[in-house]
């Protein structure tokens, strides 16, 4: 996020794009409500009636998979109605002429035909957005689950640049990250193209610095992305070993059937985790790690805030902290890696990353939270980025970006007439091995999980609320409970991805966008069918659940 979570409540306008704070980040959602109470205008772009929609001044209910067309139309209005901030753009931004050309055809009327959002509402939204003193954009899953995600994010950032909503408090743009430490894993360079601190592996100078510190020669070739792995294994036979730390791709990645095939084809699958999970069932070796609560370290919050987390209890089994396991493997492979504690690791990291250098454990204890960049120990951190409107481009100017909308790769047809998107649910978290093992949270909802569908579709298919139904795609079929709701539009269905029996990733596709190579995260065509024998279906769910739990080593 360019700005801080607490600043949300001081914005004069919030443009919330495909982000459902109430379900994914309740405490961020509180800030949104506070902003509203303080008089902020709220504009929400979402196909569903989410909690944010309920408090919105303006709702743009776009069709799934049409984000880019809408974002381009927003830019079109800013340009054609001369709503953009000319002085700011002149001073700090470049690419205006190309941008104008790219969005020229996306008039609100043109976009209405694609997105289903009324042309005048698009105009109104942009007039309000450009007219607000301090406006902030929040986006989430709704943007990121489509193959054009990267383009849409850059398109949204262009709206921010055009209106000069950057470089000060209470403005900017924020992806509100899902898992607690997604920001931190990026910060630490668990990415194929950057070392810790966002230093490019292709930059010879950066490489030399890390080579000197680590005492080995390093590769300057950008590594593989996780999303490329299925193809690299199944078609090209290039990847032979997979070391999976704390993730569960069989449950969390699209097209679970293919993920299983990938794991089974590998010569070596190492799973390092805290709970038995679906991926671990395919492992050659399992290394038990200590969990949150049993070890300490630093997390990065979504708004770049480093915060220490502490050990509260002793581990229950013969587990070791993740870093210690890795060090032991490294040492056994002839590269000695040894740290006394996490602080020693953190200090090594700080020494190599100028923008994190000042965030020592001592300073973190004193300040509670430090938002990077924090170059020295005297520095107190950076609540918002781009002070002075200097950007990290070579010439320091912000780059405008627009590109054509491309329809989702898989479209609904006669056989699979409904769209499926995957969403989050308030009580549970991603793959659920943690929340699903908490008594109070487990009671909120249990297997087989739900599929949300519209009242109209339910009537047409003779499906009643809470009935078990079958959902199928070109890749698979699962059973789940129907949640018939007015919040969903006809033709659309939604599932959450934490369920084992109603596992939506048995259905989703991993089609890769031909241009950006990003997979179509979690959007596909499905059909929903009524199950006549409800009693039999209920029994089937109970049997399957018992079988799965037994597989996972639970004493049943």
């Amino acid at each position, binding site marked *: 996020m360019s700005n*801080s*979570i*607490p600043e949300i409540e001081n914005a004069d306008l919030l443009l919330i794009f495909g982000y459902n704070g109430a379900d994914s980040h309740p405490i961020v959602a509180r800030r949104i409500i506070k902003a509203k109470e303080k008089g902020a205008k709220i504009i929400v772009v979402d196909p569903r009636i989410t909690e944010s929609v309920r408090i919105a001044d303006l709702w743009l209910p776009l069709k799934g998979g049409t984000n880019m067309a809408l974002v381009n139309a927003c830019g079109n209005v800013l340009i054609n109605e001369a709503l953009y901030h000319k002085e700011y753009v002149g001073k700090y931004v470049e690419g205006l002429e190309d941008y104008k050309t790219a969005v020229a055809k996306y008039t609100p009327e043109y976009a209405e035909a694609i997105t289903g959002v009324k042309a005048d509402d698009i105009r109104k939204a942009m007039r309000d957005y450009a007219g607000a003193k301090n406006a902030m954009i929040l986006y989430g899953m709704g943007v990121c689950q489509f193959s054009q995600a990267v383009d849409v994010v850059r398109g949204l950032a262009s709206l921010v640049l055009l209106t000069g909503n950057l470089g000060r408090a209470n403005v900017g743009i924020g992806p509100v990250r899902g898992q*607690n*430490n997604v*920001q931190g*894993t990026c*910060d*630490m360079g*668990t990415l194929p*193209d950057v070392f810790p601190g966002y230093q490019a592996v292709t930059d010879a100078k950066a490489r030399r610095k890390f080579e000197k510190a680590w005492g*080995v020669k390093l*590769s300057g070739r950008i*590594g*593989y*992305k996780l999303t490329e792995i299925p193809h690299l294994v199944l078609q090209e036979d290039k990847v*032979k*070993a*997979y070391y*999976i*730390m*704390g*993730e569960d791709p069989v449950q969390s*990645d699209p097209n679970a059937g293919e993920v299983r095939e990938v794991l089974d084809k590998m010569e070596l699958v190492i799973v390092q985790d805290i709970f*038995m999970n679906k991926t671990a069932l395919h492992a*050659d070796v*399992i*290394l*038990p*790690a200590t*969990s949150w*609560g*049993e070890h300490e370290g*630093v*997390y*990065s*919050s*979504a708004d770049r805030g480093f*915060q220490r*987390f502490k050990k*509260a*209890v002793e581990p*229950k*089994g013969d587990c070791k*902290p*993740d*870093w210690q396991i*890795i060090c032991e*493997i490294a040492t056994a*492979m002839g590269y000695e890696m040894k740290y006394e504690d996490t602080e020693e690791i*953190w200090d090594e*990291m700080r020494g190599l990353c100028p923008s994190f250098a000042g965030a020592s454990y001592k300073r973190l204890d004193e300040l509670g939270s430090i938002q990077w960049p924090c170059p020295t120990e005297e520095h107190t951190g950076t609540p918002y980025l781009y002070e002075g409107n200097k950007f990290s481009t070579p010439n320091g100017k912000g780059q405008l970006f627009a590109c054509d909308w491309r329809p989702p790769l898989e479209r609904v047809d006669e056989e699979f007439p409904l769209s499926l998107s995957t969403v989050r649910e308030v*009580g549970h*978290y*991603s793959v659920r091995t943690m*929340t699903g*093992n*908490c*008594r109070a949270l487990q009671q909120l909802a249990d297997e087989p999980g739900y599929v949300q569908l519209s009242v109209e579709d339910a009537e047409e298919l003779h499906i009643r609320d809470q009935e078990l139904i079958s959902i199928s795609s070109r890749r698979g079929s699962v059973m789940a409970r129907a949640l018939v709701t007015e919040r969903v539009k006809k033709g659309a269905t939604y599932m959450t991805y934490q369920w084992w029996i109603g596992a939506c990733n048995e259905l989703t596709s991993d089609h890769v966008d031909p241009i950006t190579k990003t997979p179509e995260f979690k959007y596909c065509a499905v059909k929903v069918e009524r199950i006549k024998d409800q009693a039999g279906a209920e029994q089937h769910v109970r049997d399957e659940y018992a079988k799965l739990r037994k597989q996972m080593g*639970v004493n049943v």
Partner: protein
Amino acid sequence: MEKKVLTVCPYCGTGCKLYLVVEDGQVIRAEAADGRTNEGNLCLKGYYGWDFLNDPQILTARLKKPLIRKNGKLEEVSWQEAIGFVAGKLTEIKKKYGPDAIMGTGSARGAGNEANYVMQKFMRAVIGTNNIDHCARV
């Protein structure tokens, strides 16, 4: 004797601060702390999301011992055997197919920044590849 440990919620990127209240080596409840982002508030997951530490055997079992697949079945082994096995296999695969035949992941969940730093260092410095990524799901 109750002891309160100030920590950070492990569930979402809001980064709420909370106290874990520990008695006799068990977490018994969580209390909201005055963090920068949460200012004394928590959601359901923050309040009740610690119970898995007590391994209540609801959905899955905690992994408590290293396991190696032998003749198709996962069997308990010592740490020494597990580490030796992994190191040997990785060395062999690296020699046979080159470092880029090995892929590693970071973890966006509980492991923490230090573990992720060490993981990417391992892949880069020990294996010799930049094949390291995580599931950057928003």
